[in-house]
């Protein structure tokens, strides 16, 4: 244990995803020795990002306005909706330039171990969006790992009875991974080769 604020810093850093106790300690000591100007800039963007960035009221993507850039774009196809786990997946898919529809960001995947069920995700919002019948195809682009697959299975069963075309990205994505790590070509191909899911 370190004294007061140093330990507070280590504790806070340790709460971030992907950072263990050792990593937290390393970053804390790096910050202690870093140039104060650099640290102030970091602190500033941390505050600013929380002030300025919001989530799109339509799709849940990060946005600087009430709606994100994609939802505001009149050229996007309103009939096709791509469901992803995180905003960073939107970025990955946009890079492929394969997809012209709109998105729905769930905010994660179903994972009982982490206490995440459908209620913790933007599933209700998804159902509300689909209610007006404009969307005719929903592409489930959750991560190609177990939690992503289970989420896709759950959504398939929820959406099929609505008479929508429900598709899943073609296999070929690195199994067990994150969508965001797939390269553009592979991800683009997975989009083109998407298939209807039957169960």
């Amino acid at each position, binding site marked *: 244990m370190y004294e007061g604020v140093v330990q507070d810093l280590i504790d806070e850093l340790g709460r971030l995803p992907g950072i*263990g106790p050792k990593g937290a300690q390393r970053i804390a000591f790096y910050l202690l020795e870093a140039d104060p100007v650099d640290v102030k800039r970091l602190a500033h963007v941390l505050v600013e990002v929380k002030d300025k960035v919001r989530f799109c009221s339509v799709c849940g993507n990060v946005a600087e306005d009430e709606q994100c850039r994609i939802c505001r774009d009149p050229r996007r196809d309103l009939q096709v909706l791509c469901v992803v786990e995180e905003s960073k997946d939107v970025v990955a898919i946009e890079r492929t330039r394969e997809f012209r529809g709109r998105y729905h960001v769930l905010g994660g995947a*179903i994972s*009982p*171990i982490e206490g995440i*069920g459908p209620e913790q995700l933007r599933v209700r919002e998804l159902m509300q969006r689909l209610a007006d019948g404009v969307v005719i195809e929903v592409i489930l682009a959750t991560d190609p790992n*177990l939690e992503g697959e*289970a*989420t896709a*299975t759950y959504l398939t*069963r929820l959406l099929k009875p609505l008479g929508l075309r429900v598709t899943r990205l073609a296999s070929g994505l690195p199994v067990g991974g994150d969508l965001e790590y797939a390269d553009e070509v592979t991800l683009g191909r997975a989009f083109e080769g998407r298939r209807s899911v039957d169960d």
Partner: protein
Amino acid sequence: MHVAHLSLRDFRSYAEVDVPLTPGATAFVGPNGQGKTNLVEAVDYLATLTSHRVATDTPLVRVGADSAVVRARVVRDGREALLEVELVPGGSNRARVNRAPLPRVRELLGLFRSVVFSPEDLTLVKGDPVERRRFLDQLLVARAPRLAGVRADYDRVLRQRNTLLKSAGGSRRSSSAGESALRTLDAWDAHLARTGAELLAERLRLVELLRPLVDARYRDVAASALGHRTTVSMAYAPSFPLPEQVTVDRDELHAAMLAELANRRGDELDRGVTLVGPHRDELQLGIGDLPARGYASHGESWSLALSLRLASYDLQRSDGEDPVLVLDDVFAELDSDRRHRLASSVEAAEQVLVTAAVAADVPDALAGARYDVRGGGVRRVH
């Protein structure tokens, strides 16, 4: 195949050690607690990415060190490869082949194979069902490394599903939360059945392949001076009734498993655990007309355990592989008859690594190179 060179850094008791090896038999001899098993455990780790002694990596890393490295130059069909794995408890392990990093450590599986005989093998016969399931799964993975992924997925679905069952069981009567939990459970069922049926199909197929091999080996190993003949039985007992005709068709198993999950859902919610699936199966072993577990004598249990290991070696041989055999401290456990039979069963292997506390425990048939292991050092004697 054989290991031509083994080097360890911060693995178990070794800060740093280099051991050149040759094909044929090699014995590591030294008093207890000197690091003999530690050496062969490292060899086995390269083949299985687990230890035959412990379930986690932490005890494999030398106390006080952050990580351990196992590196081996292995020769397979005349071709050399340098295999390396770094164990980082609390972090992610890394593996390299010929100095090139692998995207995932798991991809090391299949490049090198070993079959380990150890005093712990008695638990194959006397221990809980989990020991026999592990035996089957390890052999499955050695023969088809892809199945390591299926196995890992199954375990993960199981953990997710058990967590959900626990929370859903509690909220079952409070309508809406319970209803949504049940719907989520349907999604997990689909994946439990998908991975479970695959694992089950592979295990059933494996048991069929092993049965004649185990039986033949048992007759070999246990043939007593009295000459009476005993047979070994092996039956795979699943956690739910399989379709009439015992089948290894994955689709049929999948359907059967889903049906049983639907049947047992009430029980599962009450108890908060998954009751259906290959994690509850048993490989029933019998000698003569009696179950081996609880009935077999110490000697019979040993014969059967050795037969299982030898059969797994035989099966891999019939795949065209020649795993490195590791005989860790087993000869001291066996009477002289079994000792001889075991030694002559394995002497033809391309490489046999033996550990023993005293040189007299190493049968003549396996008298090859010898290393003295003591005080943290490994010294070639002859």
